[in-house]
Each structure stands twice: as structure tokens, then as C-alpha cells.
């Protein structure tokens, strides 16, 4: 069996230090069933060892290889070349937007990680039982239901921040991943988290472009989560308006400090 070969031109964004950015072109022979990241790695391995980019796991778990492919945000390790270009076509590879470029395709995602920590995003999902349907569980001699835990869907790849038009013009906006993280953690009884998302830089800044949901490689649906957070915040504020604020929550907050 012979795999068909395509010739694809990789136009790769290059930027080192304070020099002006430019694009380098590399013509590669690839299989259409390889992934975009495979091509980028081959450029690094055989053409230009100075190319900087981030990657690790190759199976959409680490969230390191987010880039823009022909303008659209993609997790390059699971993006088939077949799906984004054709034989003789071009792949324009650029770093994610809305993060400072460190070098070439590598961006500094520090602020995203800081904010994910602020909203107490956990790599292991708290509603584990609900999240894994019985039929999706691995077969075999395993324990009780409580033993099933799963990883959180969000892999902190930053693609949604790169795709969001509001994050693009307003870096103060917490951003889709962070608000989705707050939603997954849950704001019930968490005064600090409620204050964080119910602010100028929180859920009210979203203007429903839903690009976050469109580019998310992990089906977190940040757009839906932001909308659901709004519903929760409005509900909470109305409850307090009519019943007065709940002193119990404030007490526990003070005690935990």
C-alpha cells in the first residue's frame, strides 16, 4: 500500500527578539494524513533548527501546540493536513494572538495560567460521576462508581483567548477559558469567585461572538458556559436583593482567610 504524497508549502511566522517579524517558506513532501505539527517538526528537524515552537504530548492532552493555521486557531497535533489544505497548497502557520510572542511560534501564556489558578481550575473534574457515562467507562475489573474520575476538559491551550475578539482589544477581559474554568469549578458559595466573574472584566464583557466554542479542541464550550454563568450570577444577585446577602457565606470566607 502506498500512501499518497502531497507537496505543501509551510509559510512560518518568524520573530526573534526585537527584530521585525517575517515569514519563512519551506516546501515539504507530506502525507495528507499527517498532522500539521508533524510538518512543523520536520521543518525544525531537517531545515531550520532555530525554529521555536511548543509541543509535547501529540495527542491533544497537554495543550502546548496551539497555533494559527491559515488564520484559524488549531491544536496542530490533531489537525490533519488533509483538512486544512490541498496538494500543492499553502499552510500559513502563525503564533496565537493576544499573547506576547516569545520566539517564532512560541507565546508567553503566563497570564492565562495565573488566571486559571485564580478561578481554582482543577485538572481533575469535580463532577466526575456525572461526566463519565456508564457506557463510556473502560471494561474490566474496576471498583465502585466513586473510583471513576476524569480529567477536566479544558487543557489550557489558549486557543479560545486567541480567537476571542474582545480578548483581542481588551487584555483585562478574563477571557473564555478563565470564565469556563470558573463555571466548571462552580460559583455557588464561593464569594471570591462570584466577585471575580461578576465584574467589568468578567462575564458581562462577552459579546457573543462564540469563537471560543468554535475553536475549542476539547469541547469545553466556553461560550455556553459564559452564558450559563450569567444566568447563575443574575440568579444569585436577585436572590440577595430580595433576601438580603447571606451572612453564612461571608463568615466562611472570613474564616478561610
Amino acid at each position, binding site marked *: 500500500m502506498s500512501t499518497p504524497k502531497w507537496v505543501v508549502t509551510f509559510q512560518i511566522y518568524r520573530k526573534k527578539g526585537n527584530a521585525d517579524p517575517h515569514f519563512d517558506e519551506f516546501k515539504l513532501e507530506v502525507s495528507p494524513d499527517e498532522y500539521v505539527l508533524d510538518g512543523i517538526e520536520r521543518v525544525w528537524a531537517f531545515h531550520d533548527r532555530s525554529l521555536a515552537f511548543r509541543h509535547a504530548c501529540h495527542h491533544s492532552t497537554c495543550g502546548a501546540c496551539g497555533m494559527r493555521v491559515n488564520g484559524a486557531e488549531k491544536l496542530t497535533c490533531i489537525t490533519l493536513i488533509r483538512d486544512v489544505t490541498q496538494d500543492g497548497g499553502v499552510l500559513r502557520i502563525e503564533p496565537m494572538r493576544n499573547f506576547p510572542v516569545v520566539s517564532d511560534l512560541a507565546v508567553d501564556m503566563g497570564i492565562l495560567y495565573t488566571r486559571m489558578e485564580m478561578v481554582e481550575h482543577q485538572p481533575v473534574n469535580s463532577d466526575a460521576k456525572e461526566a463519565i457515562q456508564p457506557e463510556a467507562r473502560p471494561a474490566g475489573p474496576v471498583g465502585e462508581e466513586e473510583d471513576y474520575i476524569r480529567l477536566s476538559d479544558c487543557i489550557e491551550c489558549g486557543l479560545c483567548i486567541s480567537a476571542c475578539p474582545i480578548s483581542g*482589544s*481588551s487584555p483585562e477581559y478574563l477571557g473564555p477559558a478563565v470564565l469556563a474554568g470558573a463555571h466548571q469549578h462552580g460559583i455557588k458559595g464561593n464569594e471570591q469567585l462570584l*466577585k471575580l466573574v461578576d*465584574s*467589568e472584566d468578567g462575564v*458581562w464583557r462577552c*459579546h457573543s461572538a462564540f469563537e471560543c466554542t468554535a475553536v475549542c479542541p476539547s469541547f469545553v464550550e466556553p461560550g455556553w458556559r459564559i452564558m450559563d454563568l450569567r444566568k447563575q450570577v443574575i440568579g444569585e444577585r436577585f436572590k440577595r436583593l430580595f433576601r438580603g446577602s447571606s451572612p453564612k457565606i461571608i463568615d466562611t470566607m472570613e474564616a478561610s482567610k
Partner: protein
Amino acid sequence: MNDSRYGPKTGESTWLWFTKIVTGLLVIVILIIHFIVNHFTAQNGLLTYADVVKYYQNPIVPIMEIAFLVFVVSHALIGLRGIVLDLKPTRAVIGAVNWLFSAVGVVAIVYGIWLVLTIVSRGASS
């Protein structure tokens, strides 16, 4: 976490946003009423000054117009402030915008009410 780059700012929280949504929906409701009232009271349109003055003699019209004015001006100014916010203004700029837009809102509403009452009084005196 107290670093201003990371910490949240207060200002546009639930109630301001809620006002924007509610006034937006009220604008739609009043526009629908407006079309119904116009259909029954001003079938030939309001093509002259005299038509307009006569139209304002129906008490529902000035009430409708003033309510529309208040809701649409509030909705527009809260919305415009939101657009300014998305442009990463400094604290000083957004502070100035808050004052400016509040003033514009008050002036527009007072002026509008004055205008409506003027037209109503012209009709009553003739």
C-alpha cells in the same frame, strides 16, 4: 492577586448589564406599540407639522415617546460605554466617559421631554 493586571475591577456588574438588556427589550416592546398606534391613529403618516401636533393630542403618544426616549438613550449610552471598555481605556478615560455619558443622558432626556411637552401644549392652545 492584588496586582492590578490580574485583579477584577468593579463598575459594570450585574445591574448595569441587566439595565441594558431590560431597556433593550422595552425599546422593542414600545416600537411594536408605536407601530400599532400609528396604524390606527395616523394611517396617512405624519407628513406635516400640523399632523404631528394633532398626533400628540392622543395622550398615549407623549407617554409612549417619553418612555421610548428614556429607554433608548439609556440603552445606547450603556452600550457605547461597553464599546469604550473594550478599547482598553485607562481608569481616567473611563472615569471621564462615565461622567460625560451620564451628562449626555440627562441632557438628552430633559431636552426630549421638553420637546414633547412643547408639542403637546401647541396642540392644546390651538
